[in-house]
């Protein structure tokens, strides 16, 4: 299964970026073999509005089924929900650690946005 993690860097040892829409990178990891693809989210960081919506659309394109992040705003959440992507909001540590924690079943899924817009 593919899961997306918002990240400050381009590899599995980079720290998780708690922001979703304005994270520097989005790393889409295959939980089977830890192969990953990096989405450069920099054009979204400075987006005036709708950063979370665009970020959600780009991980949906990579067929991620779960997102591990820190904060997720209402518009991003709505987009992720429509795309059938589940959201876990309390990811910390490195991308690798977050993925491992996910595999260990440490996350529960959010049923709504946990922050107002502008993230």
């Amino acid at each position: 299964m593919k899961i997306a993690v918002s990240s400050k860097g381009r590899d599995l040892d980079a720290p998780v970026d708690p922001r979703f829409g304005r994270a520097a990178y989005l790393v889409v990891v295959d939980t089977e073999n830890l192969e990953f693809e990096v989405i450069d989210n920099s054009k979204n960081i400075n987006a005036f509005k709708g950063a979370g919506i665009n970020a959600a659309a780009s991980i949906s394109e990579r067929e991620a089924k779960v997102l591990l992040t820190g904060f997720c705003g209402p518009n991003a959440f709505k987009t992720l929900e429509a795309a059938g992507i589940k959201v876990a909001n309390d990811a910390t540590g490195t991308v690798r650690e977050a993925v491992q924690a996910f595999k260990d079943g440490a996350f529960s899924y959010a049923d709504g946005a946990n922050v107002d817009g502008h993230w």
Partner: protein
Amino acid sequence: MIISVASGKGGTGKTTVATNLAFSLGKNVQIMDCDVEEPNAHLFLDPAVTETLPVVAPVPEVDPGKCTFCKKCMEICRYGAIAVVAKKVLTFEELCHSCGGCLAVCPEDAVSEKRRELGIIEKGTIREMSFIHGRLNIGQVMVPPIIKKIRTFTNHWSVNIIDAPPGTSCPVIAAMHGADFVLLVTEPTPFGLHDLTLAVEAVKLLGIPHGIVINRAGMGNDEVKRYAQNEGIDILMEIPFSKEIARVYSRGEMIVEKMPEYKQKFLDLFDRIQTLAGPVKGVVGQ
């Protein structure tokens, strides 16, 4: 003539100055409250509302039967207001700027226009004065279209006094653009000065004649005056920090009515504005 009363931040007495200036003139004047996120002039003025108009904007509606999920609409939208995910098209109306891009670009003719109400405008009268204000609907964030709509009701044969929203972003520009004069209301405090400098930059960029009113003069320090002198901006009036004024204000009353000596001060202010503004330009937006 159009006079826009602005201040870098809220709570400086902008509405007090705008409404008292209008009351000192008494007739041939229209008060236009453009602080559509928090209109408050009507609380002081208690206008008799004679007309209510909705402000609407077109937003896209997608026909899922025609859509092939090509994502062209999403790619063209600069505001992230339309998204295509997992064979669904989502629209975020509150982000939509009604540019029509998605409608124009859709190859399948799947996008049509529907109307969304952004807010309302109310027109009315207070004695011999005209009054107009707008109010953003709950959950809506698109302020400039409402201000622009209010401004279409400019009376070119009378004095229009705009109570501009606080801040220095798009809504304020919409409330100052095309004015003959911008009256900047500030307080003699470090915060007041900081916000004033931002407001002055915006006004200079727009190239509109301007002057300063210091409210609650006597508190704080002389920094504002020094700044004004350096920038060559006239201080047109000072309203002292007094208990009596505070009391009148807190009862929602007009200073020019309860303290008649102020009527002349506001009329003098108006004279100076007229002199500084020079010949009026006329129609908004030209």
